[in-house]
C-alpha cells in the first residue's frame, strides 16, 4: 500500500492508533484526492476544511476506545447531518440544513470519525444508476471508453469508495441501492436486516424497506462499520430490539460446514455466461472451503420486482407529501395554496420521483387498493415464506448481485422498466427484510467488475460477513482502473 488513501478503514484506524500516521495526514490525503476528482461528481457538498480542522485537533488526543478514530467519512446525502446541507440529491431540499443529526451518522461521529462531505445519489434514493440526481450524474471510476454509471441509488457512495475519495461510507438500500452500485464499482456493500439500524434522521423513501448500511473497500471494514451503526433506537418504532453486536471481532474465514443455497430462479433468462461463470467460481470456492452446496427454490422470485414497484412507490407517495414548500425546502410561486403546492412539487421533484409518486398515488387510490397494494403485500408474504422455507435447509444463499455490469450513462433512461430490471436479484431481499452483502467477484469481458451476493437469515449478519470474508480472501479481487479523471 503506497498511498494513505489506499488503506482500508481498519488499516488506517490501526495506524493512527499506533501513531504510524497522523489523523491530519489521513484526512489531508483524502481531501487532496477528492479535490482532484470533481469529474466523478461524487460530492454534492464537502466539509473538507472542517474535517481537516477536526483531524488536526485529534492528532494529539488519540482515543484508543473509539473504533473509527480519525477516519474521514463522507456519507450519502440522505442522512441528515446537523448544520450541513442535506439535499437527498433533490432541488426540493437544496440549501436545507437540518438542526439535527441522524442516529446512524451520530454513531459514526461518536466513534471518532469526521464528516468529509455529502455524497451524490439518485434523487430521494429513487434510481439504479445515479442519473436522477438534481446535482448531475455520478461517474464510475471504472471506464469502458465512455462514462459508465456507478449504479444507484447510492452511486456517489460506491464511486467514492472505489476511487478512494473516502475511507468508507454509509448508504441506504431499499431495493438494492447499496448492493447494486457495490457490484458495479468493485466494492463491498451490506444491507443489514430490516430494523437492525435506525431510520431516524434518514430522508424516508419506502419506510418498510429502507435500511442504512456500510459501503466499504473490504469485508472487514464492513463488519467494523456494522458494529458501529447497528443497535436499537427508541426514536424509531420499527427499530429491532437488538443491541449492537461485535461483528468485526467475531469475523472469521472459517466457514467449514456452512450450508449454502443456490436458488435456481436466480438463473435469469438471458443472463450472460460471464455472470454464470463467476457464480460457479463462487460455488467452487465455498465448496473448497468445506461448505455444502444445496440447490434451493425460491418460487416467487420473479414477482418480487413487480411487488416492489407497487409497495415502494405507494409508501414514497405518502412519505414525500411533506415536501410541499410550507416549512422548509424549495417553494415556488402560486396565486393560492394549491397552486403553490403544485408548482413547488412539479419544479422541485425530478421526473423519476414524480413518476413514482404518481404510480404510488394510483395504487393506493379508491378502487385500486385491493387490486394493487393489497395484492403486492400478499405476494410479499409469499416471497418471505419462500426464504423462510429455504433457510430451514441452508445458512446462507449465494447469487450474483446484478444481471449485468455497469452500463453507459444515458443508455437506459428511455424505458423505466429496463432500469428497474437492474434490481431483479436484489429486490427480493428487501421485501423479505433479510440481510445481504455484495462483494466483488471478478471482471467481465469488458474489464468491468461484477459482484456476488450472499443473503442471510434475519439478524444473522455475522454469518454472511464470515461467508463473504472467506470468499473475498480466496478471490483476492484487485481494482484495475487508472485515475483517468485526474
Amino acid at each position: 500500500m503506497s498511498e494513505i488513501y489506499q488503506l482500508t478503514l481498519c488499516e488506517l484506524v490501526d495506524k493512527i492508533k499506533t501513531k504510524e500516521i497522523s489523523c491530519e495526514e489521513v484526512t489531508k490525503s483524502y481531501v487532496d484526492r477528492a479535490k482532484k476528482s470533481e469529474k466523478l461528481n461524487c460530492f454534492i457538498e464537502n466539509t473538507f476544511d472542517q474535517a481537516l480542522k477536526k483531524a488536526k485537533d485529534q492528532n494529539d488526543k488519540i482515543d484508543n476506545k473509539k473504533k473509527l478514530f480519525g477516519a474521514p467519512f463522507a456519507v450519502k446525502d440522505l442522512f441528515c447531518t446537523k448544520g450541513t446541507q442535506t439535499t437527498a440529491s433533490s432541488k426540493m431540499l437544496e440549501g436545507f440544513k437540518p438542526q439535527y443529526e441522524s442516529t446512524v451518522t451520530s454513531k459514526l461521529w461518536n466513534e471518532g470519525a469526521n464528516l468529509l462531505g455529502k455524497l451524490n445519489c439518485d434523487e430521494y434514493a429513487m434510481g439504479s444508476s445515479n442519473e436522477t440526481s438534481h446535482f448531475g450524474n455520478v461517474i464510475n471510476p471504472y471506464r469502458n471508453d465512455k462514462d459508465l454509471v456507478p449504479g444507484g441509488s447510492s452511486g456517489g457512495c460506491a464511486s467514492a469508495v472505489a476511487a478512494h475519495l473516502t475511507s468508507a461510507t454509509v448508504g441506504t438500500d431499499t431495493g438494492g441501492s447499496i448492493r447494486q452500485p457495490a457490484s458495479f464499482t468493485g466494492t463491498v456493500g451490506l444491507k443489514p436486516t430490516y430494523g437492525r439500524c435506525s431510520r431516524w434522521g434518514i430522508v424516508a423513501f419506502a419506510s418498510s424497506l429502507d435500511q442504512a448500511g456500510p459501503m466499504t473497500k473490504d469485508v472487514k471494514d464492513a463488519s467494523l462499520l456494522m458494529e458501529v451503526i447497528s443497535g436499537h433506537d427508541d426514536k424509531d418504532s420499527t427499530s429491532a430490539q437488538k443491541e449492537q453486536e461485535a461483528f468485526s471481532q467475531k469475523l472469521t474465514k472459517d466457514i467449514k460446514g456452512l450450508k449454502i443455497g443456490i436458488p435456481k430462479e436466480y438463473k435469469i433468462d438471458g443472463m450472460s455466461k460471464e455472470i454464470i461463470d463467476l457464480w460457479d467460481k463462487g460455488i467452487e470456492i465455498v465448496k473448497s472451503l468445506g461448505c455444502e452446496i444445496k440447490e434451493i427454490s425460491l418460487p416467487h422470485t420473479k414477482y418480487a420486482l413487480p411487488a416492489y414497484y407497487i409497495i415502494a412507490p405507494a409508501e414514497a407517495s405518502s412519505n414525500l407529501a411533506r415536501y410541499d414548500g410550507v416549512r422548509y425546502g424549495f417553494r415556488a410561486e402560486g396565486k393560492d395554496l394549491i397552486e403553490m403546492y403544485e408548482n413547488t412539487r412539479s419544479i422541485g421533484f425530478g421526473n423519476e420521483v414524480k413518476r413514482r409518486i404518481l404510480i404510488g398515488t394510483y395504487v393506493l387510490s379508491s378502487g385500486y387498493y385491493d387490486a394493487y397494494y393489497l395484492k403486492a403485500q400478499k405476494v410479499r408474504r409469499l416471497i418471505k415464506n419462500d426464504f423462510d422455507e429455504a433457510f430451514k435447509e441452508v445458512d446462507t444463499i449465494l447469487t450474483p448481485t446484478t444481471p449485468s455490469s455497469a452500463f453507459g450513462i444515458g443508455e437506459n433512461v428511455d424505458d423505466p422498466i429496463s432500469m428497474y430490471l437492474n434490481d431483479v436479484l436484489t429486490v427480493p431481499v428487501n421485501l423479505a427484510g433479510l440481510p445481504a452483502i455484495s462483494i466483488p467477484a471478478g471482471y467481465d469481458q469488458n474489464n468491468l467488475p461484477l459482484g456476488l451476493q450472499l443473503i442471510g437469515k434475519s439478524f444473522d449478519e455475522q454469518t454472511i460477513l464470515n461467508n463473504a470474508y472467506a470468499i473475498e480472501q480466496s478471490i483476492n479481487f484487485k481494482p484495475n482502473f487508472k485515475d483517468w479523471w485526474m
Partner: protein
Amino acid sequence: MADKEFDYYLKGEKGEYEVVIGLEVHAQVLSEAKLFSSSATKFGSEPNSQVSLVDAAMPGMLPVINKFCVEQAVKTGLGLNAKINTFSKFDRKNYFYADLPQGYQISQFKHPIVGEGKVILDMPYGTKEIGIERLHLEQDAGKSIHDQDPKNSFVDLNRSGIALMEIVSKPDLRSPGEVGEYIKKLRSIMRYLNTCDGNMEQGSLRADVNVSVRKKGSKEFGTRCEIKNVNSIKFMQQAIDYEARRQIELIEEGNEVDQETRLFDTKKQETRSMRSKEDAHDYRYFPDPDLLPLRLEDSYIEDLKKGLPELPDHKKQRLISEFKLSNYEASVIISDQAVSTYYEEVAKNSDYKLAATWLMGELFATLNKEGKDITESPVSAVNLAKMINLIKDGTISGKIAKTVFEEMIKNDGDPSKIVEDKGLKQTSDPKEIENIVDKVLETNQDKVQQYKSGKDKLFGFFVGQVMKEMKGKGNPQMINDILKNKLK
C-alpha cells in the same frame, strides 16, 4: 317516569319528517405530551412553541406512540361500555393542507382500538340508548389563521399531533335535544375518567354532525350531509334544525339531497356547502409503515377496568337508591364529578334531602353569581353540613339559615360560631311564642274576625307579624301550630 312523548318531527308541505343524526365527536386526550411526539399539549401557548421536529414533519422524522394516550382511549372505551380491541393498527389518511405537516394524518381506519359500545340518555320521554360504532386514536392538526393578512395565512402547529379520540355514534339520534344530551353525557363520562376535559370553547371537544331526513315512520335512511367542526352544543342544535329543514325543502321540491360536506355559518345560522374538489375524499388509507400493530393484553384491560372511578350512570342510580334523591336531583348532581363528590360529603354528614336542596339552590346560585365552579366554592362541604345539622336539630330555621349562609360565603366561617356571634338562634320557647301570638292577635282584632269569617289567606299575615316581632328568629313550625290553635 316518562311524562312526555318524543315530538321532534318537522312538518313539511307533504308530510311529517323524522331527522336522523349521527355524530363524530373529536375529543382531545388529556395528556402531558402529544400522541406520537414528546412536545407539550397545553392550550393557549405562544405560537409554534410546542412543536417538535416530528410535529413539523422534518425529513427523516418518525412517530413513537405515547402509552398514556393508549390508556386514555381504553378507559374512555370502557366508560362507553364498549368492546376494547386487543389488536388495532394505525393507518395514514393522506391529504394536503397547510396545517397538516406530514401531508397525512396518522389515524386508525380498519382496526380501531375500541369497538361497539353504548351511551344511555335521560330524556323527558324516557331513557334512550345511543349506540357507539367505534372509538379510535388519531393526530390533531395545527391551526391556520386566515384573518391576519389579505394574501396569506399563518400556520401554528402547536395543536398538530395532539392525541384525539374520535368517537363515532350510530345514527341513533333523532333531535337536537338528544344531540345536546349525548354531548353532555360523553363530556361527563370523559371528565369523570379524566380522559378529556370536554372544554368546547378551547376546542378540546368538537363534532362533525351527519344529518339526513326521512318521512316519519319510514325505515329507509335518506342521503346525509356532514356538517364539519361544530364546537358548541347550541351551534350543533341550530345547524341540525337548519339542515333538516333545508333537506326537507329540497325533497319536497322534487330534488335530491346531494351527499356533501357543509360548514355551519354561526353568524347567519345556516349551513353551506364547502368548496370541495371531487377528489377531496380519496384519502388513500394504508397501514402506516413507521408503526407496528398495537396489541393489548386482556390483563391490561382488566386492570384499567378495576381502576375506573364510579361513572355517572352508576352514581346516579346510587344517589337515587341510597340517598333517596329524585331523578332530577340526581341528574343535576352527577353532571359534574366534583359536584357529586361535594354533595356526598355534605349529605353523609347531615341530611340527604336538605343537602340536595341547599346545594342546588343557594350554593349553585352563589357559584353562578361569582362565576366559580364547585372546586372554588366559598363554603366548604364540612361547613355546609354543619349548617344543615343546625337546621335539623332546630337551632335555626330554614329562613335564618339563609342569613347564616350569606355570612358563611364571606370566608367559609363556622356556622355555629356565626349563629352564636350574631345571636341567630331561633326561639323555640312555646311560652314566648304564645305571648307574642297573643299580642299580635290582640292588635289585629279586625283581621282575626275576617279570618274567622273565611279569609284564610290572612293566616300568612299573622305568621308574618309574629316573625316580625320575633325579628325572624321564631321557630316557624311552632308559630304555625300555636297560631292555628289560637285561631280555632
